[in-house]
């Protein structure tokens, strides 16, 4: 298939077109990301006047300086880190526990309970009844709300159950039972140590989801000390002038144009700073994400 075998003319054309097509797609996806990076540390006025296109111009970290002084952003950062850790821990534990039980054919009433979990995938009450419930429980402006809501995903449970069914033989439990091991002990001592791969998949799925989520916080959190990074970002990235006031620039001698340029270039820096953790785990995460989709596609 590789070297040595003569390719027909049609195949040469096909390969060339194929590579060209993929290279084009590659550029289209890569360029906006690349541009954000170079714009974030170029001279703001060069960015603002369209002089930065392919290469950075006039190395300048003023934008980053301002970002590090912007308090609300770091409050948001702290909150997001906490919500991500809490939400991921809760969601992964519940998913593993539930999926394991669902993988056991000898569980009486399993079909019925699984049904209970599947129905909400297709019909749900929607935003308003959920909001009224949360309000009734006095969980508005409670950080636990954004950690708890959405912690059970049937999709993840199905993936995990498929994993358990295909990797942990039922006979193993029979053997452990003879040794006097109960279900819960077996789950913690035998199943979990054998499930590192799926745990990694779930952690990555749920951590990235939590890091990027903003809907629940928008609905259920009003306190500015509680709002996560994505809500802060939304404020900064959606309006042009707000940023200037909030950063309390206090630089009198710069003219208005310079300030506006800087405000724009700060946005590029903020995109970088807030995506940094995701960027750092991306090479690692990508592998597990793909694995998750693969397991999911076996039995979706």
């Amino acid at each position, binding site marked *: 298939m*590789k070297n040595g075998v003569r390719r027909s003319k*049609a*195949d040469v054309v*096909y*390969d060339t077109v*194929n590579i060209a097509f*993929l290279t084009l*797609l*590659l550029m*289209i*996806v*890569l360029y*906006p*990301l690349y541009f954000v990076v170079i714009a974030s540390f170029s001279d703001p006025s060069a*960015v603002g006047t*369209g002089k930065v*296109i392919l290469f950075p111009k006039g190395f300048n970290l003023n934008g980053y300086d301002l970002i590090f002084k912007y308090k609300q952003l770091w409050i948001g950062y702290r909150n997001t880190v906490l919500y991500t850790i809490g939400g991921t821990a809760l969601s992964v534990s*519940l*998913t593993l*526990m*539930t999926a394991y039980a669902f993988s*056991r054919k000898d*569980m*009486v009433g399993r079909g019925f*309970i699984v049904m209970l979990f599947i129905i*909400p995938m*297709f*019909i*749900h*009450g*929607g*935003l*308003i*009844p*959920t*909001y*009224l*419930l949360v*309000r009734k429980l006095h969980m508005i402006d409670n950080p636990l709300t954004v950690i708890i*809501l959405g912690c*059970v995903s049937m999709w993840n449970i199905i993936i995990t159950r498929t994993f358990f069914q295909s990797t942990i033989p039922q006979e193993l439990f029979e053997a452990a039972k003879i040794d006097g091991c109960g279900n819960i002990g077996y*789950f913690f001592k035998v199943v979990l140590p054998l499930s590192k791969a799926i745990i990694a998949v779930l952690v990555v799925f749920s951590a*990235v989801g939590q890091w*990027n989520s903003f809907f629940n916080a928008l*609905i259920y959190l009003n306190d500015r000390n509680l709002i996560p990074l*994505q809500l802060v*970002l*939304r404020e900064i*990235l*959606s309006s*042009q002038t707000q940023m200037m006031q909030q950063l309390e620039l206090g630089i009198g001698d710069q003219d208005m144009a310079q300030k506006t*340029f800087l405000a*724009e270039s700060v*946005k590029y820096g903020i995109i970088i700073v807030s*995506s940094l953790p995701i960027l750092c785990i*991306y090479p690692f995460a990508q592998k597990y994400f*793909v694995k998750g*989709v693969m397991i999911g*596609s076996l039995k*979706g």
Partner: protein
Amino acid sequence: MITINRVKQNIGLYFLVLPALIYVIMFDYVPLYGVLIAFENFKPIKGIWGSDWVGLYHFARFVHLDVFWVLIKNTLSLSLYSLIAGFPIPIILALALNSVTSKKFKKVVQTVTYAPHFISTVILVGMLNVFLSPRLGVVSQLLNSIGLTKGPLMTLTNPDAFSHLYVWSGIWQGMGWGSIIYLAALSGVDPSLHEAAKVDGATKFQQAWYIDLPSIMPTIVTLLILSCGNILGVGFEKAFLMQNSLNLSTSEVISTYVYKSGLLQSQFSFSAAVGLFNSVINLVLLLTVNKLAKKLGQNGIF
């Protein structure tokens, strides 16, 4: 008796399910029951059973509002556009990637095209906002410098541009990710089919067209069914984030309308009715398309 013994033997399993079950009952079934407020004039102080029942009043009101057809039109056109433009691209990408011989090149394309999937919606919309910023955005600068436009770029506030921005930024973000599932299906194609085809003198294009495409057809159909079932389910987040006062005529979709009328204007019953209307239609669509697919000889999703 035997059943009770079997339950007792595995009592631990029920403890493992219990926390998630409590969650599902609490946050899935209680709101499902709470949907009853769509059929009454719900007053929070009076509760669900104390409020006055009004039957289908809110549904009738919604259907007769001027905004009804605007919402339906916006929601439908956004998701149809997304579906028609966005559905084939991951398939094409997967087929193209599958016939690449250089492992390294394939890996690079995959790594890069998957990356946008990890960007949050807020950042994606933020990127659109800074790139297309009327005066300082890079697009505005470029178009001005080659003389295609004069003065500030009004794309972000142009109602006609909204759907294009929405759909194509979605494709930019999702095509790589969407291709994974097809690549997974393609990796299951029997290599001997390709060998046999090569012996018969099939070109690479013919192999992709006559072997690869048919073998991922079941996956394509399943995903198509799922997308069709979600045709009125345009997500809240992105549409909401991309909205501004000038593009509302095309950017208001059902989910953002539910949020505004329900939470910002506190019309709980009315917006619960709108939400319910939406999810019932989605369910009916899903079931219909599923049935249709089965009639056409494909595997449904259930």
